[in-house]
């Protein structure tokens, strides 16, 4: 297992390097140049030259690349052009909010989506199957801001169960923190519920018609054991795939949720950076996202090793 982990890490390194290079290139092929993009067409030549100097854009390309790489690899993403604080400081300040939102919506997705999918497969075309279809249709077709606003109106404004704005609750107040997390997590979790219901339902239908399930029944195993131990265990494989794939989507989708609920997070940071043309911040965020995706893929591979014995973990 340790060797497997090391191998996966080694494989992840070139991916990360490639992504970093891509970020570097992307930022530099912006029409005009970053300094021009940042300051706009009203800027004086002196101001442009001064900014280019500050960003190191007057250096030869290879030197810029070397500087970028060594900075990034030591965790230095430069300073925000707007606030002049280190990019890393701003990112680290909101990262816990994004992580807690992602994890909470993932938990909601698993806790509701998986049993609903199993239940739906059991009563094919029955009541549960209908519930599952409606839920997954709703989760996939409602834009996050529509469902978010509906939830706010119902649960925060009408019933007043949850705060309308969840900005800036400190980590030291867990109860308030959970209350402010509930609606955004539910909103984002609905998408995960939808995906997981679908994949679990179709996976269960397939697994339950497999020969090995017939074998388990021929052994006289009770229905619950046949469903969970023999059928469901095999569905864990596609479930892990879907979680791995959509965790990335989830992080992207969190932008809308964070705006609707006025929550701090990476998504809001990106929007702010885009609005204010904070190019160092954007560059830093792209790297962070790439890093998160690589970590998610690594965790997915590890999970495969756990749920599928055919995956070689040695």
């Amino acid at each position: 297992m340790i060797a497997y982990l090391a191998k996966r890490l080694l494989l992840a390194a070139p991916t990360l390097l490639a992504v970093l290079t891509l970020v570097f290139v992307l930022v530099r092929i912006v029409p005009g140049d970053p300094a021009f993009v940042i300051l706009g067409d009203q800027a004086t030549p002196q101001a442009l030259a001064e900014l280019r100097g500050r960003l190191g854009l007057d250096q030869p390309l290879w030197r810029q690349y070397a500087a970028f790489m060594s900075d990034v690899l030591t965790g230095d993403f430069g300073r925000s052009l707007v606030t002049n604080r280190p990019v890393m400081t701003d990112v680290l300040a909101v990262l816990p909010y994004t992580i807690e939102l992602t994890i909470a919506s993932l938990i909601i997705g698993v806790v509701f989506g998986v049993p609903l999918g199993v239940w739906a497969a059991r009563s094919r075309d029955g009541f549960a199957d209908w519930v599952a279809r409606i839920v997954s249709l709703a989760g996939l077709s409602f834009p996050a801001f529509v469902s978010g606003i509906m939830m706010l109106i119902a649960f925060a404004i009408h019933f007043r169960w949850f705060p309308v704005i969840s900005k800036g609750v400190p980590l030291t107040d867990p109860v308030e923190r959970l209350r402010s997390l509930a609606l955004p997590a539910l909103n984002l979790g609905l998408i995960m519920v939808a995906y997981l219901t679908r994949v679990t339902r179709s996976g269960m239908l397939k697994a339950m018609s497999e020969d090995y399930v017939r074998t388990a029944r021929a052994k006289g195993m009770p229905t619950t054991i046949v469903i969970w131990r023999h059928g469901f265990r095999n569905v864990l494989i596609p479930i892990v795939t879907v979680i791995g794939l959509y965790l990335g989507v989830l992080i992207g989708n969190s932008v809308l949720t964070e705006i609707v609920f006025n929550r701090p997070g990476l998504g809001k940071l990106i929007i702010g950076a885009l609005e204010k043309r904070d190019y160092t911040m954007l560059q830093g965020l792209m790297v962070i996202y790439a890093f998160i995706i690589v970590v998610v893929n690594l965790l997915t591979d590890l999970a495969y090793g756990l749920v599928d014995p055919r995956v070689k973990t040695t």
Partner: protein
Amino acid sequence: MSAALSVEGLTTSLRIDGVWRDAVRDVSFELARGETLALVGESGCGKSLTAMTVMGLLPAGVGRLSAGRIVIDGVETSGLAEAQLEKVRGDAIGMIFQEPMTSLNPVLTVGFQIAESLIQHRGLSRRQARERARELMELVRIPAAAQRLDSYPHQFSGGMRQRVMIALAIACEPKVLIADEPTTALDVTVQAQVLDLLGSLQRDKGLGVLLITHNLGVVATNAQRVMVMYGGDVVESGEVGAFFANPRHPYSRALLAAMPRVDRPTADLSPIPGQVPTLADMPEGCRFQSRCPLREEACARRPPLTPLRDDPRHLTRCVVTAREAS
């Protein structure tokens, strides 16, 4: 001592396009302890369906037992609720399936898959069941059994997987074993080994085996009695010796004639002309009549399964050959 398995008037219906049709009609037989009864017939004649019905494994909503009585080791299972059936399946009766490559669960160790029914039916602890699983793996001659308990099915060859299937089916020492084409998926040498193994288990444990096969050679060497099915009907049954010496039903004769033999040139190979009618356009009366060379007017009514006068244990469902025999 009662029969290991007794089946009376078993009729299985399938729902096809919303209409229930009888896919297996009025099948009766007894399987004694230690006996092998072979069930033969061409593809689609209802062999597996008969087996699944006996196991109580018909897919709900698609298949049902519409008439008949099934008694397994003295317990009538026809009409039992699923929860009651589960207590019999895997305990008094076991089954080996046609597809060794897909019949084992890919995410569970073979040791556990063998041990599972012992935990379920015999209340063994995990450790005891594991120990017993190792013994069973040795019994079915899987080399290095102790090391392979924790292996997964994909680490086994087809022949080894079929041995695991056998070990799993006989774990609780059932009285009846249904082997549905246990060797079709295997190569010839492995086939012989697996059949040998079944034979010796049977002698040691007094197991009654219902052996479903396409291979008449296997019938001749492994079974004591044989039952021929055609279109869901049993058309002939008898002792293996009498059957091969003097097959009575025209379908059995055609089947034997189509069998390749070493003592005859292959040019003689005569496949049966025509095809099995689908359930929807099965003819009234004898189901073989559309392909039968001996067909006459009386075949329009369903012929009874008639014992021969000179050998009452030999039965044929054919008015023409039953008459010719007496």
